[in-house]
């Protein structure tokens, strides 16, 4: 496919910006997109949460969306003290079997370089402001190890079903550039 793409690009039959635009339209339609279900289950089921944090690959496979590729998935948990942010500084490694296609900004050079140097600034660009005393941990993905953020469960969701909780889980909250929707947001 890369050969075909190279030839079409060289002859001007496709243009990279247009390709990105088309792919972006469908980026939420790629892969099993099961991340939200994984997070919601971890919120309601403490034993599952334990297994997920201990071995992300196996715990995600339990929900039968097995990652086809060999890479390992490590789940990192946000707490009152720590916020996690995922980046791939080298290229754009991404847990797509869980999250679908990476958003275009994830692949951009500014995000890849700034996420490490100035994570707080990057989060501010995404509209996320964290307390100054909260630690931000940045995880750099590789071809062998992908990361998924387990966000904090929003307040006021006691007794909610997994399905209802899953609607609060955004893609960005599992990359760390966002937070889940609050309980009040109409989903």
């Amino acid at each position: 496919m890369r050969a075909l793409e190279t030839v079409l690009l060289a002859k001007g039959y496709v243009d990279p910006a247009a390709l990105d635009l088309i792919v972006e339209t469908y980026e939420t339609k790629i892969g099993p997109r099961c991340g939200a279900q994984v997070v919601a289950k971890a919120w309601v089921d403490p034993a599952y949460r334990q297994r997920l944090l201990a071995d992300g690959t196996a715990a995600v496979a339990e929900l039968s969306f097995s990652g086809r590729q060999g890479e390992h998935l490590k789940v990192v948990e946000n707490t009152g003290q720590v916020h996690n942010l995922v980046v791939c500084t080298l290229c754009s490694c991404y847990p797509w079997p869980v999250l679908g296609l990476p958003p275009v900004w994830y692949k951009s050079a500014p995000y890849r370089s700034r996420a490490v140097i100035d994570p707080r600034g990057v989060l501010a660009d995404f509209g996320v402001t964290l307390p100054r005393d909260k630690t931000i941990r940045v995880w750099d993905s590789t071809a062998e190890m992908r990361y998924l953020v387990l966000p904090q469960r929003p307040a006021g969701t006691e007794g909610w079903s997994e399905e209802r909780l899953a609607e609060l889980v955004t893609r960005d909250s599992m990359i760390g550039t966002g937070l889940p929707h609050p309980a009040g947001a109409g989903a």
Partner: protein
Amino acid sequence: MTLPSDMLKLIPALPCDVEGPVFREPWEAQAFALAVDAHAKGLFTWSEWAAALSAQIKAAQLAGDPDTGETYYQHWLATLEGLTVSKGATSLDQLKQVQSAWDRAARATPHGQPIVLENDPLAS
């Protein structure tokens, strides 16, 4: 950029959910985008595309393709290759050459780094 549904309807057996096309892997979306944009730039008409794709899929089925959806975008790519050549935008030889260049580049690229065509040791 969403495709009009009447265009999508012409395409045989396109994997879709209620809202539109779905893809199992990122490269499938890239392949989808290539055909959509090449059509937008006028390389072929959409009915030519639909006809060529059905022919490709039928031929594959006759050759024993299980047609479970897993091979769908392989047929998609083969169709795009065929049309690109028959429309004279490239030749099979040129395509093969670029393919080998990508293969060499991939092998010459250290693990963990993005593969770019410039890494082809034979690139001048």
